[in-house]
């Protein structure tokens, strides 16, 4: 990946772009037109309905073979006709599509996309660390990875095959990957207390700061990327606040759990939310932010299911709709690309839900509730 000898120098500048890596091209005409062309191939609600009504897996595979997922599915079907194989094919398609986009966009669009997609690198590193912490098999960890960020499948596989968390941290440092900075800072505390949240929290905090540093320009496209990043940070903070509702926070340093860089959820509001004990109170406290109405809509399903995943999905839905809406603004701006990246991710999530749901005999109504139609 990167030479070991100059890793520290590269890491010292992490976040700030060196002169030779600053965007040289800012033209969005070609990239956006191509992205719009790709967007026209996305699956519609009618297809999802058809997929949900499929009687068995082979019928679903047959339907998917006629879509853009066909080539990836054909390549994977050699391994068998199972939901896991279809899932792998869907992931392959997403990775291939994102890599294709990164191949034809301008420098600025690539920089902004990679910054936003950095959360996938974060997700992958966290998955590997969790896997190593729980001493899972390499294959199990690799199956959960989705290399759509800057790190490649080969690099992630190599990391997943390492012995423990310390080896992962050292390898990332040797490669000059910026995420090794927070890992190295907190790995000793992790080793002492064997508390995984220490590493995860420092990674989350580092990502939001790293991304914010890369998006400091006043240009409209940077502002849009900052807004999307801020909504993601808000979403993470709110999920943390919801998790803390059932926890005893009297002896906890709650301030430490707050991620800076959000749009609507300030540190003061976050601290206020963590002192509450009921979801209703949290939603009341969020009045004046767009999240209140969004969370109010799923209050009943949340109380029925008693699962934070319902609230998490509602917040995800909100960020998704904001990202998709950004595509209707400037036709020669970054919004078109953001809109496509989120729409594609949502499409893959929807198809995965249907394939897995159908495999376990989930009713269509239940699946429909889980999907986000755009």
């Amino acid at each position, binding site marked *: 990946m990167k030479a070991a000898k100059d890793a520290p120098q590269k890491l010292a500048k992490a976040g700030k772009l060196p002169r030779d890596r600053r965007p040289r091209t800012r033209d969005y005409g070609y990239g956006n037109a191509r992205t719009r*062309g790709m967007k026209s191939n996305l699956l519609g609600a009618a297809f999802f309905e058809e997929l949900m009504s499929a009687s068995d897996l082979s019928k679903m595979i047959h339907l998917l073979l006629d879509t853009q997922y066909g080539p990836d599915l054909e390549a994977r079907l050699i391994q068998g006709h199972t939901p896991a194989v279809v899932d792998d094919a869907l992931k392959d398609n997403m990775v291939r599509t994102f890599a294709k986009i990164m191949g034809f966009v301008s420098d600025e669009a690539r920089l902004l996309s990679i910054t936003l997609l950095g959360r996938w690198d974060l997700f992958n590193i966290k998955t590997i660390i969790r896997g190593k912490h729980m001493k899972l098999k390499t294959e199990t960890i690799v199956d959960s990875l989705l290399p759509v960020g800057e790190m490649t499948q080969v690099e992630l596989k190599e990391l997943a095959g390492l012995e423990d968390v310390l080896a992962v941290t050292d390898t990332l440092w040797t490669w000059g990957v910026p995420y090794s900075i927070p890992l190295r800072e907190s790995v000793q505390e992790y080793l002492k207390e064997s508390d995984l949240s220490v590493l995860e929290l420092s990674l989350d905090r580092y990502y939001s700061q790293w991304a914010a540093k890369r998006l400091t320009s006043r240009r409209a496209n940077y502002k849009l990327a900052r807004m999307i990043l801020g909504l993601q940070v808000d979403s993470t903070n709110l999920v943390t606040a919801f998790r803390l509702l059932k926890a005893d926070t009297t002896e906890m340093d709650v301030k430490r759990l707050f991620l800076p860089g959000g749009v609507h959820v300030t540190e003061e509001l976050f601290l206020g939310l963590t002192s509450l004990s009921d979801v209703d109170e949290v939603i009341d406290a969020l009045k004046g932010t767009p999240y209140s109405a969004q969370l109010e809509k799923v209050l009943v399903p949340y109380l029925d299911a008693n699962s934070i995943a319902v609230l998490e999905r509602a917040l995800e839905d909100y960020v998704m709709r904001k990202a998709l809406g950004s595509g209707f603004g400037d036709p020669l701006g970054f919004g078109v690309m953001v809109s496509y990246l989120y729409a594609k991710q949502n499409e893959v999530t929807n198809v995965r839900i249907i394939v897995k749901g159908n495999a376990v005999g989930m009713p269509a109504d239940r699946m429909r509730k889980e999907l986000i139609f755009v």
Partner: protein
Amino acid sequence: MIKSKLATKMMVGGTFLAVAAIPAMAVAQDAAVKVAVAPNVAIAKAVAAAVTMSIAAMSAGYAQSKIGAAAAGTLAERPEAGTNLIVITALTEIIVLMGFVIAFMINA
């Protein structure tokens, strides 16, 4: 269907060009009977015509570069839109033609 659409577009384009060219031809006929103008006026006219033509050509070039890039992007993903893209790309040529007609009128 696509062919009939293209034919309609070409007819509209042709009519537009013909209407634009009529004043130029009329001015050209008038010029034949005019007497010689002062050299400094002739130079000024030539310069004005050259500037008009250059700006028109550069504007068309700029527009075509943007439209061409977007058209190439669309063509890569949706080859079936090719015919429409050629028409859209060629539309910017009108800017040059307008510049040419105006330059001709100045110099007449």
